């Protein structure tokens, strides 16, 4: 991407009236056996271009389902899922997933993994190496271009996955607990890198996490979900906190406390429900 692109995106972020992402009255249920489970109920969410939105909620409230709906892997039962005002019909490389696991291909070395994505979107062969190298350098792994995936640490793998995604130049990044499997120090570094990359590329990011501190560190907005059926409970803005942020920032502490308190009752509901089910299962098993 050229610097002109970045400028355009920044302008877009402030001027655009069309949301990058828009969920309107979205509901989604799953059938498991005879029981119908409402995963998401009446979700309304607007995300502006270049915005960084974090989703937080108890386990099973439907956060991953929202990402699946946006990516087009799942379809809503009712309501609209729009990207740039267009209804989502199928998965596409304009909305890229980053999972908890890096999902790199073990038969390719680092640079070829990034080139894999470029080939997929039809970048001509002659341009792939240079572009892949550029994004590998962005995540500071240029020295590891020829390494095999299994020769990297978990944090390095996740950075390669980020580079692979960014190289494809998607409009939206869907990040589903991407740093959960990493140690605290590596996560720290990746928080800094992600904020830099986001500032440099102007991507729209939806970021799912269980870690309230992480959400406050990264997001412009933090959205709290209720336990089943998943609904938006409350939304917090973090724009009063200056960037780049660090997970230990004192200024963020009161907001972190407030969000954690808001979340606690929902998490208790989730635990109670899951404990209850386990308890019932035990009864049946006996």
């Amino acid at each position, binding site marked *: 991407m050229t610097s002109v692109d970045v400028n355009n995106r920044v302008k877009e972020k402030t001027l655009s009236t069309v949301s990058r992402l828009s969920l309107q009255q979205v509901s989604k249920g799953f059938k498991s056996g005879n029981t119908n489970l409402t995963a998401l109920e009446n979700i309304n969410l607007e995300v502006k271009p270049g915005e960084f939105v974090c989703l937080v909620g108890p386990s099973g409230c439907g956060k991953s389902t929202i990402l699946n709906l946006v*990516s087009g*892997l799942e379809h809503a039962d009712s309501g609209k899922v729009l990207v740039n005002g267009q209804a989502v019909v199928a*998965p*596409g*490389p304009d909305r*890229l*997933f980053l*999972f908890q*696991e890096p*999902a790199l*291909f*073990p*038969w*390719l*070395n680092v640079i070829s993994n990034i080139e*894999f*994505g470029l*080939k*997929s*979107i039809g970048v001509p062969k002659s341009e792939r190496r240079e572009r892949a190298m550029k994004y590998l350098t962005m995540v*500071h792994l240029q*020295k*590891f271009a*020829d*390494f*095999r*995936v*299994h*020769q*990297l*640490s978990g*944090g*390095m793998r996740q950075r390669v996955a980020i580079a692979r995604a960014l190289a*494809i130049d998607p409009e939206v990044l869907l990040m589903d607990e991407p740093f959960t499997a990493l140690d605290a*120090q*590596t996560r720290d*570094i990746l928080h800094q890198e992600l904020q830099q990359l986001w500032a440099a590329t102007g991507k729209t990011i939806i970021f799912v996490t269980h870690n309230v501190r992480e959400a406050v560190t990264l997001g412009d907005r933090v959205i709290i979900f209720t336990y089943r059926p998943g609904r938006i409970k409350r939304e917090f803005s973090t724009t009063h906190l200056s960037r780049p942020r660090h997970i230990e920032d004192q200024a963020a502490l009161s907001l972190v406390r407030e969000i954690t308190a808001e979340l606690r009752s929902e998490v208790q509901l989730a635990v109670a429900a899951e404990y209850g089910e386990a308890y019932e299962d035990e009864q049946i098993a006996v």
Partner: protein
Amino acid sequence: MSVTLETLSKSKPQSIASQLFSLKLAKAIGFALLKIVAFGLGVAIVWEVIYLLMVEVFHVWIAALFPAPVDVIISLIDHATDGTLLRATSASLFRLFIGFGLSLPLGVFSGLGLARSRWFKRVVGPIVLGFQALPSVCWLPLSILWFGLNERAIIFVVVMGSVFSITIATYDSTKLIPPLLLRAASNMGVRGWALFWRVVLPASLPAILSGARQGWSFAWRSLLGGELLTAGVGLGNLLNQGRDLTDMSLVMAIMLVIIVLGLAFDQLVLTRLEHAVQRSYGLSRS
């Protein structure tokens, strides 16, 4: 990052090709030969003891039916020096490599076909399972009627003997691909045949190679089965000749040759290839 270049450069990435054709290969061959010699020596000593006891001391068996190891080696040298052994071996290996060379790609592609197309699976799946249950020599009468008493008849038996196990191994291996890799690929817009070439096939490669090893041993058995029941130059024919002349030394010499050839290709080519791939995928410790 916490992981430095120094610690990682100890395990410099190596391509599969360079792993296979390096000095290490020479070492491995030397080591394998040493193992074979040591094993052979052990067998020869036990054999000699049994021979001395049963034939020379107690006269329970006769030397014509239980030769001494020396007789077998002499027979081996005799047939090696007059060229019969070389001619028979090359004729057999020719059939074997043509047959195995046909059934490997055939098996891999029909296995991938089974995984790819439900229609193909419904039609071909039961046939594969059924024919896999049929011992390969049972193809011989049909093969002779179709092709006549010639090379092609035996090659056909070799193909039939090994292709189905490779098909099944390939099909099974596609089921073991981590779903996350497929999801990541489809998220990047890789679908259809491209998904097959670029993800499914390389992801299945380690398991396909184990299947190929199994297919190799089936091919070897089928070949000898076919050769024993037909005339024409070959190791099976030499075995028959030994039987007709009550030349037990020849019979045992040929059995030895068959064991060594089968093992050598399996250990020096297929197993090495399998391990090299596993190492480069990070599936085993190198």
